[in-house]
């Protein structure tokens, strides 16, 4: 029954791509394939979530994002269709699994969220003060558009480029940060993500060194059941660091991009689950 409802969604038809082993795979099928070939307690921890994934609320967010993406908006009345996410203007298929990456026009390594904001400023004329950019998390334009773009990489292998020296430098800083203990709890990312099958309370933690479970951990945007909202990578970074009792990280900062560059590299070669559903 869920399946039938899902197949009616236009997004299913839009996700065809040469990089997909099975172009028709839905995010829950991508996850199921990972479960079938691994014995990760992290991947299988919530039977309820696995069932809910077949009817993910984020599918509607994708559709809202597509409308926002194609609509002429902002002071310049332009759509985002000429935005270059790394594979050329307007190319969305597989763009997200190859981010963060170096962009020559800004001279920086950018993740999806910072690149999206860049295009909203340069192409559409929005500023940091406009609601479209200012509102980062929740039921926002930024979340909707990034979910639409990310879904175009569902099932494809994470493959962030490491050719430019800055891409390597940012990944290296992200790795350093991952192990960097600080604050009143002495926590680092590695405190929770350095071992297999460990739990915080009832939650099984993903190990960053096990790529086929780590791919789910870094598959954002995802619908967070506990938040009743779709969340992106920057939100996850911020939330982890908040729990670590470190200082508040700045959304879209290079510190956050470095962390995302490292965590994406650790999932290299594994299929992205986009959008995912998490507890």
């Amino acid at each position: 029954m869920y399946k039938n409802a899902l197949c009616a969604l236009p997004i299913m038809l839009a996700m065809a791509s040469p990089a997909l082993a099975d172009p028709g795979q839905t995010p829950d099928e991508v996850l199921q394939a990972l479960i079938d070939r691994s014995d990760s307690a992290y991947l299988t921890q919530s039977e309820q979530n696995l069932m809910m994934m077949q009817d993910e609320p984020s599918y509607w967010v994708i559709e809202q994002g597509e409308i926002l993406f194609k609509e002429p908006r902002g002071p310049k009345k332009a759509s985002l269709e000429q935005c270059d996410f790394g594979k050329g203007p307007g190319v969305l298929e597989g763009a997200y699994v190859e981010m963060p990456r170096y962009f020559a026009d800004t001279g920086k390594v950018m993740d999806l969220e910072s690149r999206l904001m860049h295009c909203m400023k340069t192409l559409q004329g929005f500023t940091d003060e406009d609601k479209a950019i200012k509102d980062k998390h929740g039921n926002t334009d930024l979340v909707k558009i990034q979910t639409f773009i990310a879904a175009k990489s569902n099932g494809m292998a994470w493959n962030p480029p490491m050719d430019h020296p800055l891409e390597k430098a940012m990944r290296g800083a992200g790795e350093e940060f991952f192990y960097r203990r600080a604050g009143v709890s002495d926590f680092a990312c590695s405190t929770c993500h350095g071992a297999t099958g460990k739990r915080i309370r009832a939650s099984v933690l993903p190990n960053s060194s096990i790529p086929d479970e780590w791919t789910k951990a870094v598959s954002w945007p995802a619908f967070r059941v506990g938040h009743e909202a779709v969340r992106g990578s920057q939100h996850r970074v911020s939330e982890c660091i908040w729990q670590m009792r470190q200082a508040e990280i700045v959304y879209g900062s290079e510190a956050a991009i470095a962390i995302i560059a490292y965590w994406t590299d650790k999932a290299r070669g594994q299929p992205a689950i986009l959008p995912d559903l998490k507890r």
Partner: protein
Amino acid sequence: MFNKTRIAALLAATLLPGVPASADKPTSAAQVDYTKMTPTELTEYLIFEANGFKLDQPAQEGKTARERMTQDELQKTCSALRGKPADAATAQKVAELARDSHVYPEGGIKLGDWKKGRGLAREGAGFRLGPKVDDNTKKLGGNCYACHQMDPKEITFGTIGPSLSGFGKLRGNTPETQKYVYDVVYNAHAYFPCTNMPRFGANGFLNKDQITDVMAYLLDPESPVNL
């Protein structure tokens, strides 16, 4: 480290053609050459110089977020292991740092109230900064259950640390055990160098009374941990 990084960054800036060396405050890859820095230098730069974190935010302990992000000797030493177990030299150095940190209650170590200890073991709030800043005066706990099993009847317990179910029953409520538990909660690195466990006493996360309450939850024969 902080100053060294800044100097390295400024030096790197001078090496980039077309970028004036007098650039007041280089803040991104466009102005300074990140590729000339070591990963450690770049990480420190991204944290402290490139608007990576809201460093001026006041922290609950009366300092600022900047000081939260600044590593002490033990944090630096243990981070350098990159998740691997401590080698003998590191272990010795860290254990010494930890032993030097222990401060005991006046009048000696006595068990507190296990019921208060249970509350502290369950509570996960305290010391978190933005965007949702914890009010430590309203809610503060050691969050022991995040990582340890304690009361065998509690089903949601973490497994990053060892199970402590029946701890007092197994170890006995002797003065030696009491000192050991106090030491471990205060600064566990004295026994387990570079452990994941926070230094609840040494970092001022819990006060001495709260530590003795947690001790009671573990050691008091009446505590559900030992029933």
